[in-house]
């Protein structure tokens, strides 16, 4: 169990991580999601021991490791762009951590074979890492990280530099490998699909603090803050007072925060509360995204899966499903 307590990291005048608390249960995979510069990679590097915190502590199963040098923590870290050793073969890269544990060489050979088989790289043992494709390098990096059986495995944007289709495939593979290992993992990414696909829980970070922590479903269905909603791609935000003035449904009685209308929650309804003019539409593969002008410069995005698709200039009258409107804190 990883326990991060009141952790603060500063670089000069910049506070990268601000009094952060989080607990990761043993065997749990937690994604750390957030925009670049939110402090997620710094958090990872402090837990690994590569960066010193200005305050707070990191502990494993109640035992503090904050002052323990990086090589004695027994944690694994897979770097962005992998940081494979270019002067060593695939097998030597994977064997490195095992050699640091002074494992007998016969056991090392067995373990290297086992791990390379797990990531689907049998037969590549003697290759130089420079001869491998991006996806293969990513597998070597994974093999190198899991070979010493770290008690905590951390990933720093491990798929960031790969193209989209390869990334989607590797996320599934990675998910399988993580669950088959039953390992405790922290997975840093700025890609929400990656985060949701892999994690038991998602930790959304902003500006050095946790914005929201919960299961992927919780976060996706109820982003609690305006930042969270915006980061997940929800743009239909209206102040409660303005929404009431328009006669739109507002959950609760408060005037605090913003009302978010999910774009996929709208339905055609002749007696609906939303009436607007189609300003434009974009084809999105399995749906159209329609921009609806509501007057007073308010524009709502609507996911349209029905036929016929509205044309620019059409007037639409819509209702929203009860679940699709919620209030987020400012």
């Amino acid at each position, binding site marked *: 169990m990883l326990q991060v307590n009141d952790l603060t990291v500063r670089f000069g005048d910049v506070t990268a991580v601000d009094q952060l608390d989080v607990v990761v249960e043993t065997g749990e995979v937690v994604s750390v999601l957030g925009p670049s510069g939110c402090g997620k990679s710094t958090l990872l590097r402090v837990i690994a021991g*590569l960066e010193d915190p200005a305050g707070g502590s990191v502990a494993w199963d109640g035992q503090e490791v904050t002052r323990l*040098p990086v*090589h004695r923590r027994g944690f694994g870290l897979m770097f962005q762009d992998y940081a494979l050793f270019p*002067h060593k073969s695939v097998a030597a890269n994977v064997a490195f951590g095992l050699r640091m544990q002074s494992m007998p060489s016969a056991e090392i050979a067995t373990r290297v074979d086992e791990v390379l088989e797990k990531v689907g790289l049998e037969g590549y043992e003697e290759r130089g890492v420079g001869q491998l494709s991006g996806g293969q390098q990513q597998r070597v990096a994974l093999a190198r990280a899991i070979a*010493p059986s770290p008690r905590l495995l951390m990933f720093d944007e491990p798929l960031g530099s790969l193209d989209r289709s390869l990334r989607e495939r590797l996320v599934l593979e990675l998910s399988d490998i993580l669950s088959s290992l039953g390992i405790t993992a922290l997975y840093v990414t700025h890609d929400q699909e990656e985060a949701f696909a892999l994690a038991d829980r998602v930790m959304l970070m902003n500006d050095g603090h946790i914005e929201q922590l919960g299961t992927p479903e919780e976060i996706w269905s109820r982003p609690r803050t305006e930042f969270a909603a915006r980061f997940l791609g929800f743009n239909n935000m209206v102040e409660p007072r303005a929404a009431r003035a328009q006669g739109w449904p507002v959950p609760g009685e408060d005037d605090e925060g913003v009302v978010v209308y999910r774009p996929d929650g709208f339905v055609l309804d002749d007696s609906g509360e939303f009436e607007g003019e189609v300003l434009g539409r974009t084809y999105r593969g399995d749906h159209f995204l329609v921009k609806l002008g509501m007057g007073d410069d308010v524009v709502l995005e609507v996911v349209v899966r029905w036929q016929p698709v509205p044309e620019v200039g059409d007037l639409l009258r819509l209702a929203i499903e009860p679940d699709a409107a919620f209030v987020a804190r400012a």
Partner: protein
Amino acid sequence: MARVVLVGVPLAFISIFFLYPVGSIIWRGLTPDGMFSLAAMGDILTDGDLRSVAWFTLWQAAVSTVVTLAVALPGAYVISQYKFRGRALLRAAITVPLILPTVVVGIAFLTLAGPQGAIGVDLKGSVWIILLAHAFYNYAVVVRTVGGMWSHLDPRMEQAARVLGAGRIRAFVEVTLPLLRPAIAAAASIVFLFSFTSFGVILILGAPRRVTLEVEIFRQTAQLLNLETAAALAILQLLGVFVILTIYSRYQERRSVELNLRPVSEVERVPATSKAKLVIAANLALMGALLFFPLAVLVKRSFTTSTGLGLTYYRNLVESSPTSLPVPPTEAIRNSLFFAVIAAAIALTVGGLAAIVVGYGKSRYSRWFDSLLMLPLGTSAVTVGFGFLISLDKGILDLRTKWILIPIAHGLVAIPFVIRVMAPMIRSIDNRLREAAAVLGASPARIGREIDLPIVAKAMLVGAGFAAAISLGEFGATTFIVRPDVPTLPVAIFRLIGRPGELNFGMAMAMAVILMAVTGTVMMLVERFRAGDVGDF
């Protein structure tokens, strides 16, 4: 036609003033009595004294290399990895010894650790002072070569090793050191080569007890008039240089590891721990003691007479009071500046033309041409001077007594530097700039004028500065061909050192300080014209 000039002029120059003289040495050494014979070579190998000279040359070069690496690698680490105030200035300052004339280095260490030296121990004639001077001279070679690579080495390599359980030292030995090995090998080869062919430093600090092949060639020629033995020694020395360069280039070819080099901004960091600050402070102290203290002592002593601080030594240079030089010292300064201008013009003409061929060319021939023109860099200055002496004595090439021979020799030594400075700058012109200009409507001639010319012109200025600085300090080749009544600054300094009396030594120090100031000024001007890191030096 243009191509004939571009290739022809450098080719003719290098053939007449390098290949022919060096060929003459080899011919002379292998045909001692007009017929092919290995007798002269055999003689030097069986002569106990000469054999010990060869052995000393070899081992002092090896030890100098090890000592230099030992003191300079930590410096390379500190300068390449940490950001601290004054680092840019420091980086420029540690390069000063590298561009100093060897005569200045020699006299600086004499004032430091010679008879009546500042540290109170007379090390003249011992190997210690030689090692010290070589470390002083070559410190920047290691810092620039190894530090240059280190500052781009992905810091996550070492971090990855640390996360996988390697301690600080283990991570360095297993990951960083192997990745730096090509740069360390390159630096070591250069230091070894410089120490192997060291002349001025040894002549002033080591002779007569501790001498290298270079000094022995000079002694056999100038003092014993034994040209056959000198030629045989020169062949031995050329073989040594050839072996070093072959090993070096083999090693360079074999390294095939593709490094993921990072921008400097991702590598360097602010020293955060007190341990890091201590390491930086220790290295600064070492640099101060090794690199700046000897020069400070030299400057201070040049202003110190028996009656306290004063300009006596400098005044004597101008007033040409009774010195044992055949000409007044001011004449030597004038000669040196005059030769420097001519040498720069020669090096710029020959080297500039060649740089255009090398810089714009992509073919195998241009690389071959490049290698040919680099040869004088690997060959010692003494070999060049000695070669001039024994070959340029017939017909229209009877130049031995002409002053022009001196700037020609200096120019020859400077040509590789001019090419190494200019060709990369020319090569660095982004072709998209030319394409952009063309799309905007510039004709090919206009593109040449607007895009290429400004950059090439700047490169020429830098090359000329380098050549002038080299000429000002050149000593090895000059000693062979200089006429007693037209001495250069380094030659005049050396002669003064050899004369007894406090005044003579004082004037030598004063002249060395002047030479240092002039060379330093030229190099500062060069640095101002250089764009960033472009160029190999």
